């Protein structure tokens, strides 16, 4: 089950906790993994940890030309065509709307949503020819339930969900699936800085009574990337300990 040998995957945002976990999990299932992010040294470190079948293709997702070239760059690094795209990279620039600057809105939409479009457009071309593809967008529970101070982030993440549904319909006949994973609160450097009161407040909303782990998200990615998930498309898999049930 869920064997990914012979497959090539690109994971963006692989310098982050979630991205690294996803990359490790895909690699463990046998996939060749291309790690992307902005901090090349961190990517190289992760590639060294993974050993064989791990490659680095750095990219600044706020640079449209770099994003447009990333799929080709990743395929050149791995020496094989791309089967699995995991668009995991994301940024936040929080602020209540009255204080939100144009550039905070634009940066978040550009990195989170526009890069998903650009990467998918480039990836789908080869996937259609080869009649196989798995596109996985890492969105967020915030894209579905909203969160004050995150109009830009919520819009970008909800946008990914709608985008995936439309693209999923376009390419389903080519054996390409397009799905999202919506993590809830996952333990990360971002949640480590919460104080006890904040942490308690969050936990009261999570029926599972604990934060999620990167591995919880990675397992979902492995499933959606697998041959076994071939009949699942346009879906959002919520991995949130029961925090939101839809």
């Amino acid at each position, binding site marked *: 089950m869920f064997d990914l040998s012979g497959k090539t995957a690109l994971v963006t945002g692989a310098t982050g906790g979630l991205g690294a976990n996803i990359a490790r999990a895909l690699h463990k299932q046998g996939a060749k993994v291309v790690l992307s992010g902005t901090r090349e040294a961190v990517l190289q470190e992760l590639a060294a940890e993974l050993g064989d079948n791990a490659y680095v293709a750095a990219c600044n997702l706020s640079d449209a030309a770099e994003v447009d070239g990333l799929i080709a760059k990743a395929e050149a690094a791995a020496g094989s065509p791309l089967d699995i795209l995991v668009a995991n990279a994301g940024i936040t620039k929080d602020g209540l709307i009255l204080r939100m600057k144009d550039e905070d809105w634009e940066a978040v939409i550009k990195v989170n949503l526009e890069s998903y479009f650009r990467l998918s457009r480039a990836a789908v*071309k080869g996937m*259609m*020819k080869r009649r196989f593809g798995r596109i996985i967008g890492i969105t967020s529970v915030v894209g579905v339930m909203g969160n004050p101070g995150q109009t830009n982030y919520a819009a970008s993440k909800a946008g990914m969900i709608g985008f995936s549904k439309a693209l999923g319909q*376009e*390419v389903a*006949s*080519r054996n390409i699936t397009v799905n999202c994973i919506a993590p809830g609160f996952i333990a990360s450097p971002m949640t480590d800085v919460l104080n006890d009161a904040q942490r308690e407040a969050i936990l009261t909303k999570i029926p599972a009574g604990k934060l999620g782990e990167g591995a919880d998200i990675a397992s979902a990615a492995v499933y959606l990337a697998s041959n076994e998930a071939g009949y699942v498309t346009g879906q959002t898999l919520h991995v949130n300990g029961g925090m939101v049930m839809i």
Partner: protein
Amino acid sequence: MSEVLERVRKIVIDHLDADPDKVTDKASFIDDLEADSLDIVELVMAFEEEFDIEIPDDSAEHILTVGDAVNYIQEKLAA
């Protein structure tokens, strides 16, 4: 047979995995060669690449047969 026709036929045969005998001047991509809308988009992109031209969407809509494609490309190359 024109050189353009031969190159177009080759792309169509490769892409649609079509029987070469069926890929004639008059063959309709959708009715005779079983192409779907995605195939058409892919064919148009393949023509653009092969002939180094741009085929705008409103022109692509009128390319329904192999002959349409050949005529369009010949006009474009002559322009």
